[in-house]
């Protein structure tokens, strides 16, 4: 097959499929509540004991306190991903919190959190696991 034709097929195919999926609602993010966060966390970390779940009001993410320390579960497309926060850096930003996971497969995440929610999260993140 001529390279020009192959390129046209590949670029046209990817673009066309992307537009079709987006226009039919396949770009919607998952929305996390208490139960979906709990089950979502246990799906990723079945050996953990979930002690407390604090979903963000936006539904974009949830702070999950476990016997192995705090973790963050967040919407990843229509699914979720999670990371324990041990070894991660968490810092305040003007609009919420910034998480750096020290993981090439999980680039940092910025979450918009109102002031009250942000302080509540920080308090839980900094609470030792045995005290949570």
């Amino acid at each position, binding site marked *: 097959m001529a390279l020009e034709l192959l390129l046209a097929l590949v670029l046209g195919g990817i673009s066309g*499929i992307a537009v079709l*999926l987006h226009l039919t609602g*396949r*770009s919607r993010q998952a929305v996390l509540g208490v139960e979906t966060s709990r089950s979502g966390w246990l799906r990723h970390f079945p*050996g953990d004991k979930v002690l407390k779940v604090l979903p963000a009001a936006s539904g974009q993410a949830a702070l999950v306190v476990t016997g192995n320390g705090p973790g963050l579960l967040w919407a990843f497309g229509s*699914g979720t991903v999670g990371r324990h926060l041990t070894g991660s850096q968490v810092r305040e930003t003007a609009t919420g919190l910034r998480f750096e*996971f020290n993981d090439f*497969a999980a680039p940092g995440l910025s979450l918009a959190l109102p002031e009250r929610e942000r302080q509540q999260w920080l308090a839980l993140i900094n609470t030792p696991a045995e005290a949570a």
Partner: protein
Amino acid sequence: MTGEISYPDVTQLAVPFFIAAILAEFLWIALKRRGGRYETRDAVTSLIMGAGSVAEGLLLGFVAWALFMFLWELTPLDMGTSVWAVLVCFVLDDLRYYWVHRFGHRVRWVWASHVNHHSSQHYNLTTALRQTWTGTFTFMMIVKAPMVLLGFHPALVLFCGGLNLIYQFWIHTEAVSRLPRWFEAVMNTPSHHRAHHGRNPRYLDCNYAGVFIIWDKMFGTFVPEQDHDRPDYGLVHNIATFNPLRVAFHEWAGIFKDMRQPDLTLKQRLLYAFAPPGYSHDGSRETSAAIKAAHLARHPEDAGTPGFGG
């Protein structure tokens, strides 16, 4: 041996079919409201990985080709290009695929290349195209060497490899439940391959087949899909990026980061590269065997069932 033989690049020729089949699967799912799910960024990432894999083949394919032609010059054997030669080559190449695929899950150096194929949490026809960009660096082309030395022309070997990949495209779907018993017994099917893509402890390291599932049955790695334990797609530790560069290189980055840790012995550094995925020098991570053991500790009722020694 010498000789000019050429076969079409079937993977490239199949591109229009791939696009048409993806559209057909998507429409089927949308109309029936079952049989899988699509997500825009996930699908686009998979398609870009597929395009990148073709590009990698165009750029670096000469490495494997040079090796095979060197071996072809050495061998006194020539199996020819008869229909029987093509059929035998196809079957042998599928056996070759089984072992390369098994290495791909059991040797981290090879897993670093293959992991991206498992990195989607979805399972649809676009997942089939989420292919590696770094296959050349695993040096697994060496597993094709015996076929060339047996007298199968390199062009024929690559042709059969292309057919093998095309066969595997259609089994990446939830739209097909199960096929007739005789077919499920011999061939790799959507059901068998769904199990292979499952991150459930039961399905870790099973069903490596390309075309014929008989290899898994022969070598003890077959696990049938269980209706009460549906495959949960993705990785044990799912990646959190749709960036194709991170998808392609994240495990390589992980290997080199692990190998650079201070105070490791040379053996430990090498094990980070070549031991099964999940190896750690301090026991802080879990291999698939440890994950299965931990699952059985939580669910002893699963002991002896498929995937857990059954």
